[in-house]
């Protein structure tokens, strides 16, 4: 299960190492961690095996971003099932592997 939730600030916050989209100054590039001043931070995750850049803070936001809101899909993050009701409370981190699946034929 996920160690940190959006509502649990006591948990260790994840650190984003992001090169800002705007042209970086020498100072910014030499810093080991960078915090951006822009409001939307994009990071890389993998969705259904493909790299995907997102600024979604939660799994629910990502599902919405991908136009699956209101669609009958099931989700897993890093190999663990995430029930639909828990997507809002599931934060995303860079490098997360997300699976979004739906009903299909099978033998």
């Amino acid at each position, binding site marked *: 299960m996920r160690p940190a939730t959006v509502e649990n600030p006591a948990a260790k916050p994840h650190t984003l190492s992001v090169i800002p989209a705007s042209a970086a100054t020498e100072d910014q590039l030499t810093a080991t961690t960078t915090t951006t001043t822009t409001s939307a931070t994009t990071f890389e995750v993998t969705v259904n095996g493909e790299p995907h850049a997102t600024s979604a803070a939660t799994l629910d936001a990502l599902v919405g971003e991908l*136009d699956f809101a209101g669609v009958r899909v099931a989700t897993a993050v890093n190999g663990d099932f995430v029930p639909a009701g828990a997507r809002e409370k599931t934060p995303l981190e860079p490098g997360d592997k997300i699976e979004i699946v739906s009903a299909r034929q*099978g033998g």
Partner: protein
Amino acid sequence: MNKIDKIPGDATDDALTFYGETVSSRMLLGTALYPSPQVMADAVKASGCQIVTVSLRRETARGKIGARFLELINGLGVHVLPNTAGCRTAKEAVTTARMARELFDTPWIKLEVIANDDTLQPDLFGLVEAAVELGRDGFQVFPYTTEDLGAAERLVSAGCQVLMPWGAPIGTGRGLANPYALKTMRNYFPEIPLVVDAGIGAPSHAAQAMEMGYDAVLLNTAVAKAADPVRMATAFAQAIDAGRAAFCSGLMQSRDMAAPSTPVAGTPFFDLDGSASRRGGKS
């Protein structure tokens, strides 16, 4: 009843029950590989089956593919049995099962954990591990397994109330590759519903399984890849009915030496001293 020494008396007490759900058809049909969704739906209807297997896959087209399939399946009015096809570890299978339970709204799961790409054979270790975890999580597991009795006992201990041993590797159409082992398994678990699942190619294979006392047959490729899937679905349904009726009727004992079916007494030209009249010689 599933005891092989108690042959059901008539059709009304010959019900098949999985986890408390009673069905009237002993054919389970897969939904994959058909030329079109309509042919699949027609084959399901023609077969009279009441349980179809389904799966789940990565969604790409904003949910439209999944939505269309669900609509089609829901219109058939049958039980769905989601599978964990493609899973190679217990963890993958467990997570897939949980996603399937939410998607299809059923605790039933056809549990597949596959060891090898060439044979698609069950990975018995992963299968048992996944069955234990899913059993604890309230699933009603239909394990796709081999004829291995040790694995079967562990699956039953894990809560499985049905076993589904293979006939032959998935999609090979070879029929019952090891009927001796399947007979042994039937004798070893007289009370549990047993379903032959995988490798069926022809209705005669399905009939053979039913004649052995198996409770049902699950097949997909043999119908979907037939030249006329809808007609083949009917053929399979008839074969499964015939096999079951044969089992219930008590098959004759086979023997090595001939035993005449026509009585000997009263045979014309019959000579007790050894057929001199047949040789045309003088007696």
